[in-house]
């Protein structure tokens, strides 16, 4: 045995046509070790004998060295003999030489055409999946009116409290600030024409018809939609939804409908609340310099343009947004992967899908209301 801490070495000396390589010292994968090519530099032997002399501790680095020696000798047609070297190191070296049959090629990334095709097929599958959920909800409504649905009002009221009452502070704050922003931006335009008072018309109409319902919907998509998807997604991962099905309870009746109904019922109220706070925000800015419009005057002016049809368009839109957020969130939750990451991905997908549906449906409503002259 060498003294501890001796550096790994491989000394080569030619004896006749046999090259003796004496391997010694401590072989550590973390330390420098002799290189086989360097050891063999300038040597042209017919046989090689690798011997362990004063070999201390060793690890995989020795196995690598032996592997290099063996593959080099084989490629040069030279015979190699090992003497006094640990059998374990040789076994490890032989594992490296063993070339296993290649397992099937990993799938890898598809090419552009395949990816495009797969994405299109996937889109079609997703549309069918959503249509399926809408259909199941329709059946569930049918069962509800025939008194067969496993719908629990208790759950629905609790969801209403979560998505309605608990959302009031954040919806209120955002709507108020949107009213403030609209008033500031509008003031730049109306002051140019000396029509300061029209700020009331502008903010009132924009808030009641568009921004009120829209802001409430966006907040609920982020707040409630994500929560629904995450809840259903983790229930799915934990087999809770399977457990409902095998007890004979429809997950649509029991989990999806209370949530959609809660959002559908609460959204109109949240939109009205959002309208009120938005108008208040505009009023607060108008009352301050440079506009200096008294709130009573602001209110009277706003009433000349905002009528019940404007408020009802907002409320109709809000109810539809509620429906869409509920559907998108529950859909994404139910189709979540059965893993810890699945619930998180479902929440993200729910927010993206519901925001997209809100904006698209808002544009459709704009066209419809325009045609109807509302």
């Amino acid at each position, binding site marked *: 045995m060498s003294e501890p801490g001796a550096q790994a070495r491989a000394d080569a000396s030619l004896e006749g046509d046999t090259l003796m390589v004496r391997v010694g010292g401590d072989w550590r994968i973390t330390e420098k070790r002799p290189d086989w090519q360097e050891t063999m530099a300038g040597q042209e032997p017919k046989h090689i004998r690798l011997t362990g002399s004063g070999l201390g501790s060793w690890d995989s680095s020795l196995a690598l060295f032996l592997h290099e020696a063996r593959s080099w000798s084989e490629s040069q047609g030279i015979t190699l003999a090992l003497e006094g070297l640990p059998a374990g190191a040789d076994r490890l070296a032989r594992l490296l030489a063993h070339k*296993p049959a290649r397992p099937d090629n990993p799938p890898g990334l598809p090419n552009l055409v395949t990816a495009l095709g797969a994405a299109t097929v996937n889109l079609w599958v997703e549309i069918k999946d959503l249509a399926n959920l809408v259909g199941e909800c329709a059946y569930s409504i049918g069962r509800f009116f025939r008194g067969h649905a496993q719908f629990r009002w208790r759950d629905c009221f609790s969801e209403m409290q979560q998505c309605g009452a608990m959302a009031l502070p954040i919806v209120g704050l955002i709507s108020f600030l949107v009213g403030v922003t609209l008033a500031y931006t509008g003031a730049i335009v109306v002051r140019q024409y000396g029509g300061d008072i029209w700020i009331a018309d502008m903010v009132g109409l924009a808030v009641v018809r568009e921004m009120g319902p829209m802001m409430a919907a966006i907040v609920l998509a982020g707040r409630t939609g994500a929560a629904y998807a995450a809840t259903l997604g983790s229930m799915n991962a934990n087999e809770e939804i*399977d457990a409902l099905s095998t007890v004979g309870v429809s997950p649509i009746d029991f989990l999806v409908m209370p949530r959609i109904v809660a959002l559908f019922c609460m959204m109109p109220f949240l939109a009205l609340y959002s309208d009120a706070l938005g108008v208040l925000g505009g009023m607060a800015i108008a009352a301050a310099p440079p506009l200096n419009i008294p709130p009573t005057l602001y209110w009277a002016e706003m009433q000349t343009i905002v009528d019940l049809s404007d408020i009802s368009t907002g409320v109709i839109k809000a109810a539809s947004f509620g429906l869409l957020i509920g559907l998108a969130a529950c859909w994404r939750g139910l189709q979540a992967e059965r893993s810890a990451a699945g619930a998180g991905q479902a929440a993200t997908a729910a927010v993206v899908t519901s925001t997209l549906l809100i904006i698209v449906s808002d544009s459709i409503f704009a066209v419809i209301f325009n045609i109807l002259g509302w």
Partner: protein
Amino acid sequence: MNSHGSPSGNPFAIEVTNLECRYGERVVLTDVSFTVTPGEIFFVIGGNGCGKSTLLRHLIGLKQPGQGGVKYFGRDFTHADHAGRQELLRTFGVLYQNGALWSSMTLAENVALPLELYTGLNRAERAGIVALKLAQVGLAGYQDYYPAELSGGMKRRAGLARALALDPAIVFFDEPSAGLDPITSLKLDELIRQIRDTLGTTIVIISHELASIFDIADRVVMIDPLARGVIAEGEPKQLRDTSPDARVRNFLNRRGEPVGQQLGAAS
């Protein structure tokens, strides 16, 4: 002793005929056929990824088979209409791998939900049954606990209490001892045997725990991923010692086949 027996005088609690199980587009199992007699403790065994859990999902109707079908006490479950299916769903309970308790409800509410939906019992009577079921699995007094407040073994026992709520004739277990320590696992096995002995319940267990298999199984079927189906059926000890199939003997004797190049075999 057998309180459930066979309602229509049928000799089989479960009859699986030529079942084809798919996982998405992939066919996992084909031509699976076996029968389970009432009051039997029956294991479906096999290595990881062989399709045991997929088979269970087909048996309990969470997935529709490509071909073949499942009958409970002689009544076709796979092709039953909605009403028939709802009725047959009540003949069995399922204990999922981690209990699958509904996390937003207390244990009492978890166990009471099936009772609430399918029985005319009033609140006090339901509370009585819930207390009985929880006591049966050794969780007396845990009514107001939420699933998150329980340990893994307790969750599984609570899941069992829920599966037993309607006193089903058959109870399915999906890997009941996965992730449990040996003592907890042993206690669960004892509980399973006790339930069978007391109520005559037919028990079907999906598992690869050899200790449980030899301890409580009356009969097993073994599934193999390459054969994509059943490769053996019979009593576990007999299969271990006398099966003509090496895969079955290796599995039951906990013996590995040489896979690739082994470190010790190289030199």
